[in-house]
């Protein structure tokens, strides 16, 4: 006895039969779905823009002074360590600088390294380190670190924000160091 091909119906040997029906039905349903999708999409056009300035022409040898104003690092209470599960606790702080330079000139701020680590005073074990994961510029600087001296040649609020994950239970005394650099554009 011959085995009946799986696509046949009532002994029909037409392989295009059932599959053909399914293909046609599938195409029809897909057509409706595509149509419905298309009519429910809405496009809105908008503009993007950027002003690229002439490079700053310094009048002559120009000084640039930078002063540390304040550091506000958080007081962190480690009630939950990372090992206990849940969201990893993060520490976020802010360091503020002021600068004096040529009126109207653009400067770019940067931080010396992205992997500065805080550590507990007196500890040398790597287990007690936690790395800075992100530096963010704020205050007078845009997110790229660009700022422009005002007409008096002052920038009073150059903010460097630092975010670090707390990967070990550390109480007090965590310190770290980094260098903030200003460069005329």
């Amino acid at each position, binding site marked *: 006895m011959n085995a009946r091909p799986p696509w046949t119906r009532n002994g029909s040997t037409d392989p295009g*039969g059932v599959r053909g029906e399914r293909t046609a039905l599938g195409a029809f349903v897909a057509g409706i779905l595509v149509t419905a999708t298309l009519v429910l999409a*809405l496009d809105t056009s*908008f503009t993007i*823009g*950027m002003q690229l300035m002439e490079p*700053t022409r310094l009048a002559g040898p120009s000084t640039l002074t930078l002063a540390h104003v304040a550091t506000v690092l958080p007081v962190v209470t480690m009630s939950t360590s990372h090992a206990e599960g849940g969201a990893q606790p993060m520490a976020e702080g802010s360091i503020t600088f002021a600068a004096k330079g040529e009126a109207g000139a653009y400067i*770019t701020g940067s931080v010396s390294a992205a992997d500065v680590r805080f550590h507990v005073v007196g500890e040398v074990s790597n287990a007690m380190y936690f790395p800075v994961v992100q530096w963010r510029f704020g205050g007078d600087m845009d*997110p790229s670190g660009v700022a422009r001296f005002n007409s008096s040649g002052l920038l009073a609020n150059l903010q460097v924000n630092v975010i670090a994950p707390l990967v070990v239970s550390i109480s007090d005394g965590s310190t770290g160091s980094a260098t903030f650099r200003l460069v005329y554009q």
Partner: protein
Amino acid sequence: MRHLVPHLSHGLRCVWRWRGGLCTLLAALLLTLLPSVSAWAKNHWPIAVTLVQGLSFPPASQGLTLNYVTLPLDATAAVFNSVGQKGQTINCTIVQPSVNMLLGAGGTPATQILVDTWAFGGSLLDVIGAGQASFSNVGLINNMRVGATAHVAAANLPGAYVGNVTFRVLYL
């Protein structure tokens, strides 16, 4: 009833013989119904998007090769509001993977700044390559925000660069 069976059988055989034509007929029917489907959808799920502001990057000095990022929550990110079917979720995308902002006609690389890496925020949840949100119980989504990255080259000439982008909203 019995005398109808041969006729019915013959009819079915004809239908089967002409199934290719039937598919064509169904396609034609679908095309005919398109305006009705469209109208039905618009009546039941009207959606409108209002552009609050376009996207701009911070002014930068010419002569440096740098990437400039406007984050979705930055004040200069693109902002949209939308009205639609309450409770419905939408998927928002930027149609173009990347766009060149042009200085004037932008005929040379020195007069083009590439923009890509669209990021979604505000009321949009940033999923990979898109932003998603649901209409409130009064059918509103406000503060849909889009940021991006501009790749400025040292060779770019100074001036005002402008580009056009398409924000697409789609019901999920």
